[in-house]
């Protein structure tokens, strides 16, 4: 089922879509009620008090109580809407802990998707129904924006930064994906589809499209091929930080501050190494900006994530790991 044909209602295809719609339609109702109320009053006044009608024209008395009322009451209503929206917003910014990460690299004018198992897509994103999905996104050039109306999700995708959004698809089908931050010539052609499948069908799709190496395995290969292990490996002659299990750890920087080694930190350490120097190390790491694409950086990050203690190496396997299929 695809989203063509004339619809005046957008399908609610994600877990959060319904609560967003409740807020949306409530606001539409509230605004309509206020608008109709004001229009009716204006209309009645225009008729009742039009020139020549013998209506009572003597001046009104004290106006302050009325004015305070229609200052305070709208303010309270607006604060109520704000609070309601706060709850929904917090939910939309907090992916569940068990969300599966899929990587997105935007470039003029296409979306490149990388599944952790190594499967790649262009302009389409296959996801399983009912499983929370977290998209980790970056851009290779200008600012883009990932927008799926049916899911009610949108997030700008920035160069040299990672932004994320999450959703749980709740209806099988194909849903439009748009780029919605103007990015140049073919901005209006930079779109595609999110294809929601049953978990079983998704596992099958992953099987069909697997490239033989998972993203983390690709990252491990790059780690060796690009010479990272030459300095960061156990037998290196150069004094460089050990990266085993680095992801998520606290790092002490040369200026005395600390930072958590998250995706952004690792990305910047590779592409902008002078930005944050680890305490006790010389700033001799070369930048790989221009040598590594954003997709390759994501692979390396996936590899480094996989070296965390407690996770099996290259744990994100090439086959589907959802609900019953073997790893």
């Amino acid at each position: 089922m695809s989203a063509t044909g004339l619809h005046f209602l957008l399908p609610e295809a994600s877990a959060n879509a319904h609560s967003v719609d409740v807020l949306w339609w409530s606001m539409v109702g509230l605004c309509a009620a206020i608008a109709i109320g004001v229009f009716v009053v204006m209309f009645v006044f225009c008729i009742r008090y039009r020139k020549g009608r013998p209506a009572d024209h003597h001046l009104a008395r004290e106006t302050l109580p009325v004015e305070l009322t229609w200052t305070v009451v709208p303010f309270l209503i607006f604060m109520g809407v704000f609070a309601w929206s706060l709850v929904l917003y917090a939910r939309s910014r907090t992916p569940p802990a068990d969300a599966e990460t899929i990587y997105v690299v935007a470039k003029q004018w296409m979306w490149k998707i990388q599944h952790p198992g190594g499967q790649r897509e262009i302009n389409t994103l296959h996801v399983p129904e009912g499983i929370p999905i977290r998209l980790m996104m970056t851009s290779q050039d200008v600012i883009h924006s990932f927008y799926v109306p049916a899911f009610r999700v949108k997030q700008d995708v920035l160069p040299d930064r990672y932004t994320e959004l999450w959703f749980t698809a709740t209806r099988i089908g194909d849903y439009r994906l748009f780029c919605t931050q103007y990015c140049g010539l073919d901005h209006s052609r930079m779109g595609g589809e999110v294809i929601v499948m049953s978990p079983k069908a998704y596992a099958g799709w992953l099987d069909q499209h697997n490239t033989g190496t998972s993203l983390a395995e690709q990252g491990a290969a790059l780690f060796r091929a690009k010479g990272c292990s030459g300095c960061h490996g156990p037998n290196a002659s150069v004094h460089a930080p050990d990266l085993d299990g680095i992801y998520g750890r606290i790092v002490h920087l040369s200026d005395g501050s600390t930072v958590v080694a998250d995706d952004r930190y690792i990305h910047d350490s590779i592409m902008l190494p002078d930005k944050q120097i680890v305490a006790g190390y010389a700033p001799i790491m070369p930048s790989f900006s221009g040598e590594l694409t954003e997709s390759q950086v994501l692979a390396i990050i996936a590899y480094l994530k996989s070296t965390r203690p407690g996770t099996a190496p290259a744990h994100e396997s090439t086959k589907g790991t959802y609900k019953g299929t073997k790893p």
Partner: protein
Amino acid sequence: MNATVLTPGFPELEPPRTFYTHKSGLLSWLLTTDHKRIAILYAITITLFFIMGGVAAAMMRINLVEPNGALLSPETYNKTFTFHGVVMVWFFLIPSIPATLGNFLLPLMIGARDLAFPRLNLFSWYLFVIGGGFTVTCLILGGVDTGWTFYTPYSTLFSNTNVILVAVGVFVTGFSTILTGLNFIVTTHKLRMPGMTWFKLPLFVWGMYAVSLVMVLATPVLAMTLSLIGLERVAHVGIFDPALGGDPLLFQHMFWFYSHPAVYIMILPAMGVVSEIIPCFARRKIFGYQFMVYALVGIAVIGFLVWGHHMFVAGMSPTAVLVFSILSFTIAVPSAIKVFNWTATLRRGQISFEAPMLYALGFVGLFMIGGMSGLMLAAPALDIPLHATYFVIAHFHYVMVGGTVMAYLGGIHYWWPKITGRLYSEAWAKFAAILMFFGFNFTFFPQYVLGYLGMPRRYHAYPPQFQLLNILSSAGASILAVSYLIPVLYLGWSLFQGARAGNNPWNARGLEWQTTSPPPKSNFLERPVVQKAYAYDEPAPGTPA
């Protein structure tokens, strides 16, 4: 010469020496320091820019009739929507009411002979013409395809168009705005005639004062931000370029720090105009004058604190999102107060429906709808799906076109007799106003639906399921275009064939109605009488009770 107020509608038999006839010849206009002549120079120039921006809009709407783009290539479309935004925002909407009606009326309304700095006023106009002319030339020859928002890194590193030149042009024009605002602030503080205290000022004057505060404090930020874009394109240092350690969000913060107050520059004068028209045609003083003043100033001040609501999905921290959201909800309160007060002014009035009143009532309705859609966008949970879709386009066109442009036209009609000394055709004016109201809704209401359904903005082509709504919108736009053309015709005709207007054809209150139509060069031949604001319960000075 006896300059007492004549009975409304009674034409003068011999036109006295007015600011038109005071001196003649092209040079006397191009070198004038008379605020009234400068207002007319501005009116002509901004009308030309409005036509240019309107042609761009027409091209876009024709193109959007078909899903694959009916008229323009993607490249041309991108340059066209940039042209439309740049011209309409900076060369039409921002100067529209302040530079035309504000320039003409501010000294009259406070009983002054001119603005505080008349030569600076003329200089403002020249900056406007030079900056605007230069910018439009660069936009047409070669063009710019970044959108009027110039987001980086696209505008600094990727666009191959005349970005620097257009930035320079807008920079220059910005100083026109700054100097006008400076002139208005100083004039309002220092040149009020004896007896004209702050709380007797018409709300139009308060509107000019509030907008001038914003113009003066916000526009320099735009100037420097555009300057940094230009410098960055030359130097490639990376202040906004993430690959070099810079931050594209820094640009967005700087840009929107100006551009959000800019939208209040566009609406505050409109509110001032409507606050003059409604009391006059309802024959009642404005309801809640003091609250209306505080609301105007409150909008101007809080308007500086909400810029981040343009960036809810840009990558700001959730804390920033919440702060900007709560402030954006707060700023809706003074706007709501104003809508309620305008409505309440109608109560127990003696309402008549001349064209200015139709425009003013249309403003209240359309501004309210546009404002409420803004309220929806202030909620981050709703802004996430709606941001950068046609919902936002509908929102700001409701407030800027359904709001400001209608108020501007209402003001033009209301003060037309005062400015030109002629009466326009009321029948045609009413027809055009009503046609405009319907044409406007026909054009822009479908865009709310398009946005809800997910059609992004700045799209040259779109998926086929959006076509019907796009066709509706384009059809409405053709009606709207006609409704803008009609006033040009009958207003132009009235200049030559219209009945002559008396001093106060509407029997309004306010000092500008106590002088001749058109006024003499020094504004008043006899000292006007200061009444309390909106003294519709008292007779106009000079008339029998």
